[in-house]
């Protein structure tokens, strides 16, 4: 494995809904262990880009390569299998399942499940169930959720639901983690904690992360590289410091400067 090749290489993907060019010619190159941001005003196509990456929509142009393997055209569960996992902008937990079962569903991906083994409770099956349980507990402990593992996910406070969603995504043992507005609805302190948490899981689990976020402070703080979308078009891609000075970005967010 060459180390200079990006882990996630997105080259010119795009999708059109009728006449609406939701995302056009989007390219991202995220190196192993990188933490990149994807920002843009409302309706810029960020979540659509995520849906393209995770196979919810099929890209109509370009290609997506994950760790040297083409993943565009695959179904969502195959992409998850390949090592791309995500959270959702409006939390999509399994509300009636317990906290631990939410994570255990995600652990399902790594392992084999034969009907006979399940029904006869073969030693291999039991061993796997134990491993999944142990791993899920380990993950829950990352955000201190292990104390509430039997609660139904829908009864968790909002911030914990967001954290649980991140943990669930990590349960699939992804290479790349896509976080869709993880700080939405959080107060400044919670955002700070979240930034620390993201940094921690990144180093602890060696994750590569792509982050969609509205909160500029958070993105500028933790991301190494930022791509800015506006009306589906990439208007800038640079380190945070440059993005802050980029006139196009300022225009997209604040409108044209007066008197021009």
């Amino acid at each position: 494995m060459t180390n200079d090749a990006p882990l996630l290489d997105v080259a010119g993907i795009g999708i059109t809904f009728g006449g609406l060019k939701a995302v056009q010619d989007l390219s991202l190159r995220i190196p192993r262990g990188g933490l990149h941001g994807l920002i843009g005003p409302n309706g810029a196509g960020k979540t659509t880009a995520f849906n393209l990456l995770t196979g919810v929509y099929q890209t109509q142009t370009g290609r997506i390569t994950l760790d040297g393997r083409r993943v565009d055209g695959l179904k969502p569960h195959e992409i998850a299998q390949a090592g791309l996992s995500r959270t959702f902008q409006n939390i999509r937990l399994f509300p009636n399942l317990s906290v631990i079962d939410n994570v255990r569903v995600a652990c399902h991906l790594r392992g084999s499940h034969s009907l006979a083994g399940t029904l006869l409770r073969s030693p291999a099956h039991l061993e796997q169930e134990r491993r999944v349980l142990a791993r899920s507990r380990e993950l829950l402990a990352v955000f201190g959720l292990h104390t509430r593992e039997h609660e139904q996910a829908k009864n968790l406070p909002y911030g914990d639901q967001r954290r649980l969603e991140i943990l669930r995504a990590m349960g699939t043992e992804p290479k790349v983690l896509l976080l869709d507005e993880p700080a939405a609805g959080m107060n400044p302190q919670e955002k700070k904690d979240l930034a620390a948490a993201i940094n921690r899981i990144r180093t602890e689990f060696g994750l590569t992360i792509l982050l969609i976020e509205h909160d500029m402070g958070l993105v500028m703080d933790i991301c190494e590289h930022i791509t800015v979308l506006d009306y589906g078009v990439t208007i800038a891609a640079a380190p945070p410091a440059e993005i802050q000075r980029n006139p196009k970005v300022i225009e997209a967010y604040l409108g044209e400067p007066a008197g021009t």
Partner: protein
Amino acid sequence: MTTRPNASTSPVPSPLPGAGAWPRAWLPVGIALLVALLMQFGFPALTGEFVSKVGLQAGIAVILAVSLNIVNGYTGQFSIGHAGFFAIGAYAAAATSVYGSIAIWGAPGRQAGLLGTGVLGWGELLMVGGCVIGAIVAALAGYLVGLPSLRLRGDYLAIVTLGFGEIVRVLLQQSGRLPRTEEDELLRLPTAGELFPPPLGGAQGFDDGVVPYASLFWVYLLAGITCIVAFRLKQSSMGRAFLSIREDEIAARAMGVDIARYKVRAFVIAAFFAGIAGGLYAHSGSVIQPKDAGFARSFDVIIMVVLGGMGSISGAVVAALVLSALPELLRDFDAFRLIIYALLLIIMMIVRPQGLFGVREIWDFFPRRRAATPATPPAGATP
């Protein structure tokens, strides 16, 4: 569930047997066998013949409700064609046991030796074989019905499954008459020319030759096995994949659950056990008719699942037992009994819309001695 010596150190929420305890995995099967024997030899003596008959039908209802629960309750695919699988199983089992008996012994029902009145007879084993064949045929049908569930959701899928049940009903109505000998009107094997349409009795139903081999023993043994299968599914990765589809399909896909495969799987497993229930019903002394595939029976089963709580196995069992017994208990009120039955259902749905137990099991309602949380988080993971 049994207590284990290491129960205090292992905070497993739902006890899994410890390492090297695989033989213990057979324990529930042993318990099911014991219950079945108790039902066979104890229940009739305690309650009399009439209640035993109700008990037999209640056991069949348990198999139906628990199996439907796998599709409707676990996977959240609303199927209202369960009676279709039931009828397929019933007819396939009846045909196997009647024509099989004629082929082997020259006449149907000569090899009785019913368990309870004598020893385990060959005819009875033929019924079990018939149930298995019925279950396999029903499972194949389940595969076919499962396919549209990949594209259809909610009400639309419900209509497809409803249509499936009706198709089965109409096809059975169009089946050929039972072949009989010229001279003494006895059942015989069909000739090659009579194989199409298959000789299953047509609109009259399969009304001759099926010996009531299905005793309380077989019904409750198979009901027990159905419950064990349902429970083990629910406790496994596979079951959690089913549940995740019910909870949120998009999230389930994103977590790597192949929802197409699991939906079809749920239909196949549920249809398999509905087929077994059908096979037992065919041998329970009732005449099987095309209308057994109709939606009236499907709705009976759905009511049991909804009333017990979608996804709750013990809920489905309790609801199946109660709802099978209730119409009989209300027999004294004669004309009003169906009204009372319906009123009870309406009140139940108002008071407890999530069903008797919701998604939980009956034992979840009792306080349990358990170390609810790990005392210390795994090393290296402390915030």
